[in-house]
């Protein structure tokens, strides 16, 4: 009797947790999809000046990113060697760089369309959303990688475009630069760009 009851409880918990996970992935996908479709509308809005448009796009999209975590992961073990002032400075500079790079990619958009294929919870605190940027002759895969932050919200820590991880690419570059120089030369180079 007790065993049976226990089984029922466990299966209810299991079923409801998978249902919940499904909903969570679905919910996040709809959220991102909504944001991207707003961005696409803004891109086509010729009434807006370039600066206005880009400002609106960024304010729409930036809430999805965990810039602090991205900065931290991009520096790897070097992060801990910095004092908090330097950490903040790096995060600021790198965040600006990431935003600029995002806008730069959007500037190439013409008759492109974005379709969302799937969203999946890969771990308790990880989620992935798969999407494609398509035009007449080409199809590019974009994978959004989310983690669950301390306050429970899902935030992007990496983007993979055609299998190329943005974070990994910066990580390798930063590691090489820090081997040759130091954090100040790295900041200088990032600022100069």
């Amino acid at each position: 009797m007790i065993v049976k009851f226990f089984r029922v409880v466990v299966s209810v918990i299991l079923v409801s947790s998978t249902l919940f996970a499904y909903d969570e992935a679905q919910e996040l996908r709809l959220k991102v999809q909504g944001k991207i479709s707003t961005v696409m509308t803004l891109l086509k809005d010729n009434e807006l000046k370039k600066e206005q448009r880009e400002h609106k796009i960024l304010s729409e999209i930036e809430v999805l990113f965990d810039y602090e975590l991205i900065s931290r992961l991009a520096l790897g073990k070097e992060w801990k060697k910095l004092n908090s002032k330097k950490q903040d400075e790096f995060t600021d500079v790198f965040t600006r760089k990431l935003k600029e790079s995002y806008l730069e990619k959007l500037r190439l958009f013409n008759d492109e369309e974005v379709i969302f294929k799937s969203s999946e919870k890969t771990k308790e605190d990880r989620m992935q959303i798969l999407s494609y940027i398509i035009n007449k002759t080409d199809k590019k895969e974009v994978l959004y990688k989310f983690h669950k932050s301390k306050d429970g919200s899902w935030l992007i820590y990496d983007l993979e475009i055609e299998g190329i991880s943005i974070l990994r690419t910066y990580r390798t570059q930063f590691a090489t630069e820090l081997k040759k120089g130091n954090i100040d030369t790295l900041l200088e180079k990032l600022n100069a760009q």
Partner: protein
Amino acid sequence: MKAIFTLFFVFFIVLVQASDISSFDDEFNDNEPAVTIVDPFSSYNRVMTKVNDYLYINALEPVVNGYAQIFSREVRSSLHNFFNNLYSPISIVNNLLQFQIADATEEIGRFILNSTIGIGGLFDPAKVSFNLETHTEDFGQTLGVWGIGSGFHIVLPFFGPSNLRDSLGLFTDYYINPLNRIEARSYNIIDTNLESFGIGAAKSLSTASQHKGEYASMKKDAIDLYPFLRDIYEQHRNKVIGE
């Protein structure tokens, strides 16, 4: 008592912070392949990257821009379809060599439909009306699927980043292609070397025009161009081999 509490508290904070970032260790650690890439020719590669970059910006890009000004977007995508269709048999062979039978069948269907109804490949009814997707595969990917590692990274003149495996693949695809005339073969479609270079050049131009501006845009993410291009090349190849 207070001291013990503080100690416990500090310990707790350290633990939380450590677990927070170390949960990413399986994805991003300091021994990842990108950092430990085999690169004995890095000084040559650096020089060749500069040469290619110069050629791309100063020779290819102006031509691409001119091409894009003469032909409308529609015409350019049609020509692009045409060249892709022309090279589709190479993908078919490689899909078969990778035992991807479903993909090979889809690609064969595309080739037949687009060569006929699509007027020699100018249009893509296979995708528009029959929903058949492209499965572009080259011999470098085939070798990768067979378990052959990438070997050292090498920057080829004109072609850009490559590695030992993919260079071998490039040569093999080039060699077996009936559109290239390396020696007199019964299945050669082309009579002279000049014609085969012409087709190759036209295809490259068409591809470059479909990706107009992408190189310049991407380059802005680079702190140091050579390792940047090397890493994104290797990451991308690993991805397409895994598919």
